[in-house]
């Protein structure tokens, strides 16, 4: 047996502790809550799988989950193609490169709650720039506090504004890594610009796009702050996505058991979809 270097364990230890205290232990607490019922005073009663069964049959949960998938689906369908198009039209070299990159990175540097507040003020019908313009100047009835459609349009626009840059920057990184010879060869082979995109640029961007889609999926599936600040889940329940509903149940109604069960299912869905997607996208490479 070869003697192995064992001291490396000490370097991993701080990370293990950190992960234990900010992820593993809280999560075990959640598991603990999810199988019990409490009425306060630190009194707990065994509930078993009861909360999970109820949740699976709950219309309220189904509606929130449906809204969540709709939101994530729509923003992915917009942000991914839009990000690729912007990345393709950005200059590859020269004076404008740093300017484009910094401009692109700006929205991502703004904290979530500030983004929510900004868009809230921006869309107010009486004083907001956009709200005033739409209602008074253009005469289009636009009030996201009253109209569910307007509310959805606003949260989607806000997310596209905030996060398309991530897709742009990742795609751009993939694009600039393509050697010139590929474009020259394609020119000589008589390839159309669509063929260049389909057979050179897209395959070379595949890896970064997989990461981009994964990040955007997880992030939008867990979105909370911006929507909480902007619409608070309203009007009615129209923009109550999973996370907003979860917080309402956990902190609003203080139903710790159902909330814990819900967050575990929520976590499982995120994990499952991410894993499925990643496995499918990388399947070809390992052949």
């Amino acid at each position, binding site marked *: 047996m070869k003697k192995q270097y064992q001291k490396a364990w000490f370097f991993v230890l701080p990370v293990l502790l950190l992960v234990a205290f900010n992820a593993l232990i809280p999560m075990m607490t959640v598991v603990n809550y999810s199988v019990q019922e409490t009425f306060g005073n630190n009194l707990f009663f065994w509930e078993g799988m009861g909360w999970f069964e109820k949740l699976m049959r709950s219309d309220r949960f189904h509606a929130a989950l449906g809204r969540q998938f709709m939101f994530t689906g729509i923003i992915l369908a917009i942000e991914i193609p839009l990000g690729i198009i912007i990345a393709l039209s950005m200059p590859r070299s020269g004076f404008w490169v740093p300017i484009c990159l910094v401009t692109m990175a700006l929205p991502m540097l703004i904290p979530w709650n500030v983004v929510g507040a900004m868009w809230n003020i921006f869309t107010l019908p009486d004083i907001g720039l956009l709200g005033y313009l739409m209602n008074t100047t253009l005469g289009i009835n636009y009030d996201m506090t009253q109209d569910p459609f307007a509310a959805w349009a606003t949260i989607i626009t806000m997310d596209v504004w905030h996060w398309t840059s991530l897709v742009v920057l990742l795609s751009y990184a993939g694009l600039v890594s393509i*050697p010139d*010879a*590929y474009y*020259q*060869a394609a*020119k*000589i*082979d*008589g*390839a*159309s610009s669509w*063929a260049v995109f389909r*057979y*050179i640029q897209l*395959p*070379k961007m595949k890896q970064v796009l997989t990461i981009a889609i994964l990040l955007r999926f997880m992030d939008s599936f867990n979105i909370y702050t911006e929507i909480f600040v902007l619409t608070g889940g309203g009007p009615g329940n129209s923009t109550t996505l999973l996370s907003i509903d979860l917080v309402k149940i956990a902190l609003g109604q203080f139903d710790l058991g159902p909330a814990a069960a819900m967050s575990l299912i929520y976590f499982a869905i995120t994990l499952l979809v991410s894993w499925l997607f990643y496995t499918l996208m990388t399947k070809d490479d390992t*052949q």
Partner: protein
Amino acid sequence: MAKITLSKLRHSYYPNPETPEDYALKEIDLDWQDGGAYALLGPSGCGKSTLLNIISGLLDPSEGQILFDGQDVTHLPPDQRNIAQVFQFPVIYDTMTVFNNLAFPLRNRGVDEATVKQRVEEIAEMLELGDMLQTRASALSPDNKQKISMGRGLVRKDVNVVMFDEPLTVIDPHLKWKLRSKLKELHQKLRTTMIYVTHDQTEALTFADQVVVMNDGEIVQIGTPVELFERPAHTFVGHFIGSPGMNVLPCEVTQGAAFFNGHMIRLEGDISAGSAGKTEIGIRPEYVSLGDQGLEAKIRKVSDVGRHNVVDAMIGDTPIKAVVNGAVPAQGETVHLSFDPAKTRLYRDGWIATETGIAP
């Protein structure tokens, strides 16, 4: 298939070139005959890739013209020139199979599927890719990938010229030789004009019928491998080609004779007329022999390179190399060196300045 003519071609990467140093290519006039196998040889940065990209249409020359069979194509884009180019690193379309890779240039030009199939299979057979046609191209080894790049160039029947830009750079040494002979074989079969750019003299000399040697944006000599070796037109060709390269010895010319270190050196022929300039004697180490008489030299080092020994010696302050078969002198020994007059030449400002024919 076409004869390619380069006429008064100059190129500069600066927008407003002024001095000759601003030009990456300084006035090139050259004819490439139809069906020839050419090599473009020169050190890195001598302008050979620039020249190649101008012929293929990836670069627009600053001045001059390119003619394919007398037709001006100077400003035509690459796909309208009907040329093919193989790059330093294998360029393949990762997501396609080998078959689709080879079919790509044909399909882009609207060739019917039956012809595509027949042509692709033919070329794949020649390149020994026949049994990999349905594999994904990204799964192949670098030498097979490079074969695909070559195949994409050769698959089009009407191609005017196939250009290779140092295509063996990333190939393992033991496969280089194999691919090179494959290429030579393909040239004999297809008779397409081929231009092979390289800085490796072995590659150039084994592949080409005609080698164009470039240095500093200029063509210094065009000739068969034998001509380049036997009678270099420029000291650059002399020491760039051959291993070790030609000895270049400073000399003085008085009354039509060359003197080195005070000794008169016999040359291959009369010294041609010309203005005064720096004069040098060029002699290949292969034609320097050790003997009882001649120039006195001190042995500095003897290296056994396998087939023969290379002797490093000093004549006064001037280093000189000789290729010796058989017995070699010891280090520090004093020997006498003599030059084969038929292979000894005078160079003036780098350029050859002797007439052929042994002096009386």
